[in-house]
């Protein structure tokens, strides 16, 4: 786990990174995202239908003890994490869509998370009284939306400043990701050594399988490949810190430590798996860009010929 100072520092870094992400966007990008709202809806479906079900199923299949099962189901019920936007940016995905999905899933989290927790915990006969801190959810939104908007305005005001901020934000993003990857093994080697395989499978699997299912559902609902990859990342990447916070507020002592295990492990591993997936997605996008650049003109009807 990170110390308080580190957490605060990371929070400030996240705002700076989002400032940079915002500087890469135009208001047109969001209008395109709104013009095709299916993407956002599919994202919500993935977030609150697939992921909680996946968490529950994994808990059952892997035969996790109650405390761990709670942690896993909780992880599945979380809204999308802010880091999904950074990974989407680096994977050359549809950043505006990713941000809109994060915002929407976070907005409805206050209502959806208790509801889903109640339902799935009930299914497993687990305690179902949780404290979802609305204030912290609001904070997530502020940290996400405000810097993004400022970044967009900066870019519109002066493209030179915008491009510089984007570059700095991107560099900071890489730095933070590398920092998290490089420091987590030494920090957590005791925890890693004592964790049983089933817990590993659960903590890593929920992210990876979530991405896969998110991708498949998007493809099934006819999203283009770039949007499908964006939705995949958004689905797999949950808001880990929020899960940790809910556990801390809800459980005490020994129980708290046990329930925390999967959210903590998830938060560690998701950085690693997302980085790998991002590198892979980025290659695919680059290849598609080049192919599109050279492809023949489409003779079919023009669907988006609306001037705005």
């Amino acid at each position, binding site marked *: 786990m990170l110390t308080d100072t580190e957490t605060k520092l990371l929070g400030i870094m996240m705002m700076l990174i989002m400032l940079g992400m915002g500087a890469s966007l*135009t208001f*047109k*990008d969001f*209008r*395109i995202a709104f*013009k095709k709202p299916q993407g956002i809806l599919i994202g919500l479906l993935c977030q609150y239908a697939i992921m909680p079900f996946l968490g529950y199923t994994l808990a059952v299949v892997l035969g996790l003890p109650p405390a761990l099962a709670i942690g896993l189901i909780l992880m599945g019920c979380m809204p999308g994490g802010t880091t999904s936007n950074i990974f989407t940016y680096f994977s050359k995905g549809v950043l505006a869509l990713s941000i809109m999905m994060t915002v929407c899933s976070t907005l409805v989290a206050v209502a959806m998370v208790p509801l889903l927790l109640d339902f799935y915990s009930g299914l497993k006969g687990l305690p179902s009284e949780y404290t979802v801190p609305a204030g912290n959810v609001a904070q997530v939104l502020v940290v996400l939306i405000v810097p993004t908007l400022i970044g967009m305005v900066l*870019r519109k005001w002066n*493209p*030179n400043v*915008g*491009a*510089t901020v*984007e*570059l700095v934000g991107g560099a900071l993003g890489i730095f933070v990701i590398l920092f998290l990857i490089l420091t987590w093994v030494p920090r957590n080697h005791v925890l890693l050594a004592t964790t049983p395989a089933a817990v590993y499978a659960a903590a890593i699997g929920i992210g990876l399988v979530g991405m896969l299912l998110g991708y498949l559902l998007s493809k099934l609902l006819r999203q283009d490949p770039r949007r499908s990859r964006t939705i995949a990342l958004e689905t797999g990447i949950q808001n880990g810190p929020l899960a940790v916070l809910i556990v801390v507020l809800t459980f005490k002592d020994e129980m708290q430590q046990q329930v925390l295990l999967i959210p903590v492990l998830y938060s560690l591993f998701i950085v690693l798996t997302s980085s790998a997936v991002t590198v892979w997605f980025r290659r695919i996008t680059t290849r598609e*860009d*080049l192919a*599109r*650049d*050279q*492809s*023949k*003109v*489409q*003779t079919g009807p*023009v669907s*988006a*010929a*609306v*001037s*705005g």
Partner: protein
Amino acid sequence: MPATVYELKPWVAHYGALTARELPPPRHPNLPALLSEAATRYADQIAFTTCMPNGMHGSLTYAQVAAHSDAFAVYLRQALGLAAGTRVALQTPNCLAYPVVAFGILKAGCVLVNTNPLYTPTEMEHQFRDSGAEAVVIVDMFADKLADILARTNIKKVIVVEVPQFFSPVPRAVIRGVMRWWNKVLPPLSIDHVRLPQALAEGAALRQQLKIDPAGYWRDLGHDDLAALQYTGGTTGVAKGAMLSHGNLLNNMEQAIAMGRSHIDDGKEVVLTALPLYHIFAFTLNLLCFYSVGARNVMVPSPRPIQNLQRAFDNYPITWISGVNTLFNALMNEEWFTAFPPRQLKAAVAGGAALQHAVAERWQRITGTRIAEGYGLTESSPVVSFNPMSGTPRPDSIGLPVPGTEVSLVDDHDQPVPLGAPGELIVRGPQVMAGYWQRPDETANTIKDGWLHTGDVAVMDADGYFRIVDRKKDMIVVSGFKVYPNEVEDVIAMMDEVLDVGVIGVTDAKTGEAVRAFVVPQTDGLTEEQVRAFCHQHLTDYKVPKAVEFRRELPKTPVGKVLRKNLKAEYQSRQPA
């Protein structure tokens, strides 16, 4: 002798808004006079903006361009001691340094030698030696290519420019940092050189010190004086320099502007320059024409990948764009372009290679504007014909000859062919070059009686609209029957499984020549039999390729024309001697 159908100029009746049957002679004696007038009239307006793929940008006003190019002219004449008429090579992608240096060379009374920055050292050496250039202005990214060849040329001075030239310090530092350490495209320079800002400072200082009026360098230049050597022949053989005079370029500017006049508001246009300025198409149209009408020129250093243009469209209200078929095609495959096509766009012009029917149609549907297709050659500065901006569009047509131009279609004996019959397109007009630099034989082969023989086979309809059939020398004769590769390529390109295609003629023991197709498949598994079967549905037997060869890509010119001569050379090199 009765007037031929071509001498009657049936196209003049279809000029539409354009009433002048002939153009009045240009008002200016030379290009610098025109450039200076524009700079005075639009002094404080932005003349050029370079827009990088990440949106970083730098701009120069008309007054700044004038001051910098004056300083550069003084530098060339005083600091380097170059004489009037000396050739100076310019080798850079689109960037703010380009207009400053190009205008400076013209103002010095020197001759501009446009050079493709992607040339290999061998090609550079040929062009520098052939032109006798005494100085070269080159972009830092490619300046290392000079090291091996400099000693074998006349070049005495190397002036180095950079893509973010004239940017503010922070964006410039960021771009150079990325180029150096991330993209690794800035090689170390071992050769003796001077950087452009230093050359400009020297020129400005000398100007003040010696109280020089740069206008003295160019005041006496006339229409017949040489302005540029524009190298060509990439598709036919060894590159030769077309001698373009001040008069050629001034006249062609007038001719091109006349065709677009109805869509040009002086001092208000924003033109996107995605094509390279060292190519004659963008040089005359984007650089010269739009400068003279007070437009803002938004230059993109490289339009590939096409996403590089997104920021330019986002940040500037583009009203005009020039491009080639592949560029328009690529734009329309981008969601950011189709979802929000540029609202202020008035017109697009296409040249360089044939504009596909489907591309033109889709463009009109998406942007609500027309792509006017034109036709031209380096040897004619370049514009010969253009589709008018009004009236019904004629698919596949290169339009009407521009005012003041005579066009005729002739057979192998230079006799006019009847209306509707294919013949070699020949051109006479004030835009036709004086000849090839130091190549009287080649000149005599190309210009006969003042008629430029283009080597393109075309047909004219009753209204005076022309349509290109193919290159004359690419024509394939199969058992005495004429086959134009374009026709075969168009058929094969209709197959969904085909991405790209090039067709050439190869020697054949039985039929004299045989048709051979080189196909880049879009999907795996396409077979020779499928291609031939498809051709049989659409073509007479003798036009169907005897052999089909599959490849990953085709050799192409910088503007995307398939280099058939390279395919031929490659095929021949594989044959047993």
